[in-house]
């Protein structure tokens, strides 16, 4: 694994390519350790039946491509042009105005000109022009066209796995050209010839087999929830058991497996558990599932087909258990898939009912056909209808800001709900600068399957714009807690904060909800969900 440079080293970034370069087409991509992820292991591709599994390493000269790789890629390219209007249009209409250039967190953090969204797309467009346009065929490089060679394919791989599909560039593009769409389809092409990363292929294989990315088997999943139940009992004095795979429940709950696996996601998971227990008396009838134990979808970072294959579990399990509707946890790309793809992939879920909150009677009209509700909107509705007794002062030791995750922001427009919940469960909330939040939010730098260890330098670079905005509110208001509604964020932002803004921790929204939630008959809270002493509360303990 490459050594990650110190922040002061990383910060030396030059955003201005020198004037007399040869031109990008003549420059071979130099694959730098610390930037790329390791290649997929054959067993992970084999398990899900993906083509050309093999042992290979990006640093090797020989990537062991199949003999007819070029034919496969070009055929795949053509096929996708015919299937996706987005792809065809985005290959044709870019005017290279450059509005997207400095909007990409990877360009801002690395200065690598091929990380400008326009150029990332040009890597594919150049080949498109060569094969599909008259000018490209005749004029070649003078029309911006180039032949698909092994070097070009390697360059694609290198840069397509340096894009987190965050869509910030598409917001600024006057024609709405969406690099995520190009990355997604470009990655499909690399997958056709067995080029992927193990950090994506392994979770995909795991998810296919065990129902979740982390490969947690059903009994282990139960163990983890049991462990959290004990933890919660220590903090509140109440045992909050959860149901697993229970048939006949009204609601199925699905959350990213990261939430049950590692801190600080686990605290968010405990938050969900406490909320469900709190609502039990008011009539919440909910179950978790070990089969549909993954909200996220690394298949989406592989191909549309793999996304569909992994997503299918959600409706299948809802049908098997006979629930009325599905509640989804806090996750970013999960919600892009649920909002923009799920019903189209695997619907219509006509065996489900239009979601209604059993507590408030609110109809979730915006989830009418998909039948899946975001837990943050579910909770926002509870708070609005005064169904939760909350003591926000329990979060008084936190000065909170909110990181909009790319997908809920630009693939859904889920902006106010989390803010409404946060403002009701904590007293100190500060927004980051407007150019870095809401629809203009910056990526954590590790989405779309890039949250590996070997590419830490890239992740720290890509996360720089986000970290810089956190630093701003950290210095200005003393913000010490970065909240988010995404499992990948919870997994990667702690590293990013440690690297660029030490002194800021990361939390999910429901961790703060559960901290503030006042239970009947609970013992006096002296600790938060992290087991850390609540300042100001320890005095009360002495009184007792």
């Amino acid at each position, binding site marked *: 694994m490459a050594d990650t440079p110190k922040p002061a080293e990383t910060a030396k970034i030059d955003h201005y390519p020198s004037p007399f370069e040869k031109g990008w087409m003549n420059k071979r991509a130099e694959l730098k350790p610390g930037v790329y992820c390791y290649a997929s292991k054959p067993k992970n591709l084999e398990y899900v039946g993906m083509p050309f599994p093999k042992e290979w390493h990006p640093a090797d000269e020989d990537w062991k491509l199949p003999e007819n790789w070029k034919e496969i890629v070009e055929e795949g390219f053509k096929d996708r042009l015919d299937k996706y*209007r987005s792809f065809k249009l985005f290959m044709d209409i870019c005017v290279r105005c450059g509005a997207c250039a400095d909007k990409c967190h990877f360009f*801002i953090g690395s200065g690598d000109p091929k990380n400008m969204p326009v150029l990332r797309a040009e890597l594919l467009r150049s080949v498109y022009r060569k094969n599909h346009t008259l000018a490209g065929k005749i004029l070649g490089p003078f029309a911006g066209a180039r032949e698909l060679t092994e070097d070009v394919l390697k360059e694609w791989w290198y840069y397509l796995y340096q894009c987190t599909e965050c869509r910030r560039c598409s917001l600024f593009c006057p024609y709405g050209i969406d690099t995520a769409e190009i990355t997604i389809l470009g990655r499909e092409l690399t997958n056709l010839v067995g080029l992927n990363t193990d950090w994506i292929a392994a979770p995909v294989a795991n998810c296919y087999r065990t129902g979740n990315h982390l490969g947690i088997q059903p009994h282990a999943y139960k163990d983890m929830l049991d462990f959290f139940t004990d933890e919660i009992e220590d903090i509140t004095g109440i045992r909050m058991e959860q149901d697993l*795979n229970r048939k006949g429940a009204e609601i199925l709950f699905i959350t990213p497996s990261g939430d049950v696996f590692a801190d600080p996601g686990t605290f968010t998971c405990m938050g969900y558990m406490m909320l469900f227990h709190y609502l039990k008396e008011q009539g919440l009838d909910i179950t978790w599932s070990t089969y549909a134990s993954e909200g996220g979808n690394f298949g989406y970072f592989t191909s549309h087909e793999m996304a569909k294959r992994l997503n299918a579990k959600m409706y299948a399990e809802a049908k098997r258990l006979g629930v009325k509707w599905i509640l989804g946890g806090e996750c970013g790309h999960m919600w892009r898939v649920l909002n923009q793809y799920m019903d189209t992939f695997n619907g219509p879920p006509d065996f489900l009912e239009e979601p209604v909150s059993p507590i408030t009677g609110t109809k979730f009209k915006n989830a009418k056909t998909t039948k899946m509700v975001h837990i943050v909107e579910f909770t926002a509705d509870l708070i609005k209808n005064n169904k939760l007794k909350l003591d926000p002062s329990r979060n008084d030791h936190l000065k909170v800001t909110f990181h909009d995750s790319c997908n809920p922001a630009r693939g859904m427009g889920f902006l106010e709900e989390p803010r409404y919940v946060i403002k009701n469960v904590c007293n100190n909330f500060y927004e980051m600068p407007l150019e870095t939040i809401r629809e203009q939010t910056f990526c954590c730098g590790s989405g779309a399957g890039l949250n590996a260890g070997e590419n830490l330098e890239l992740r720290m670079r890509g996360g720089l714009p986000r970290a810089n905005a956190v630093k701003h509110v950290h210095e200005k208001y003393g913000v010490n807690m970065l909240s988010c509604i995404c499992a990948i964020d919870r997994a990667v932002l702690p590293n990013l904060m440690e690297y660029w803004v030490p002194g800021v921790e990361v939390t999910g929204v429901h961790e703060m909800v559960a901290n503030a939630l006042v239970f009947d008959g609970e013992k006096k809270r002296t600790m938060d969900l992290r087991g850390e002493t609540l300042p100001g509360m320890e005095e009360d303990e002495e009184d007792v």
Partner: protein
Amino acid sequence: MNFVLSILFSIFAVTVVILIPWIGVGALDLRVLFGIVIPYAAMATFFVGIVVRVIGWSRSPVPFRIPTTAGQEWSFPWIKSNPIDNPKGTWGVVVRMILEVLTFRSLFRNTRLEYRRIDGVPKIDYEWEKWLWIAALLFHYSFFVIFLRHFRFFTEPVPAFVTLLQNLDGFMQMGAAPFNGFGLPGVYLTDMLLMAAVTWLLLRRIFYSQIRYVSLPSDYFPLFLILALGTSGMLMRYLLRVDVTKVKELAIGLFKFSPVAPEGIGVLFYIHLFILCVLIAYFPFSKLMHLAGVFLSPTRNLSNNSRFVRHVNPWNYPVKTHTYEEYEDEFREHMIEAGIPVEKQAEPKAETEEKE
């Protein structure tokens, strides 16, 4: 390709475009070819080309509903949604598209990265940057007004709106131009704005290193072509006048499909006309197709309603999934042991094994 080479190539191409009619009409007097045949061919290429391209795009379906949401979604009645930037239905999309097409709304969001290091610590700001938006608006609207003004050459009598436009456009500079009183007509504001905007768009391509890096010959070529078009037009109007009556005779003939190529118009007119022909014939094969493409962009022209209105993918196909039965078969024993409900009880075979 190096940017110098890109620019030289484009300049060379535009020079050829200018030389062709210069020689063709100036030396060879091929008035019918350059005044009638080529304009018709160019117009046909333009219209047919655009239609073919748009049909080509339309033939590829939109499998998924992927709008870029740029504001709050439609949610609870007590949460204010942004019906334009995150439309829930057709009307929102219509307004979003109108604003996108007429006011370049997305480009208006543009900011400029300001990256600094203070004692080795990065400090990033996003500064005001509306120049691209301003130049783009000025360029497109000036071009549009100039196009409309040209109707005075194609129509008899000249429609009132054209005269009005002409007066408005010329009004600002009337009497203010340095050459006024020397027998020169008033300067049109849009002529100046167009040339200024195109020049700026060209200069930013050369001097902004990021834009220079991504620019291709096909980015410089249309700019040079439009500069040449504007220059030849302005030369005709302000310095080297051509016989406008005869130009009009030719233009009206073209539009009435009874073309004539009168003698003695002046070669400059043919150069202007030929550049225009090249521009519109090039149009369907180039990035200029963004004019039509923007209307079809799925991140802009779709409403964000896929959670409450089902979107159908016409080529959706069944895929292989890992079913619950397969899952339970693999983990049944563990599940039973952990007290997780199962569909089928453990196989008798397993039981016998246990007994043994």
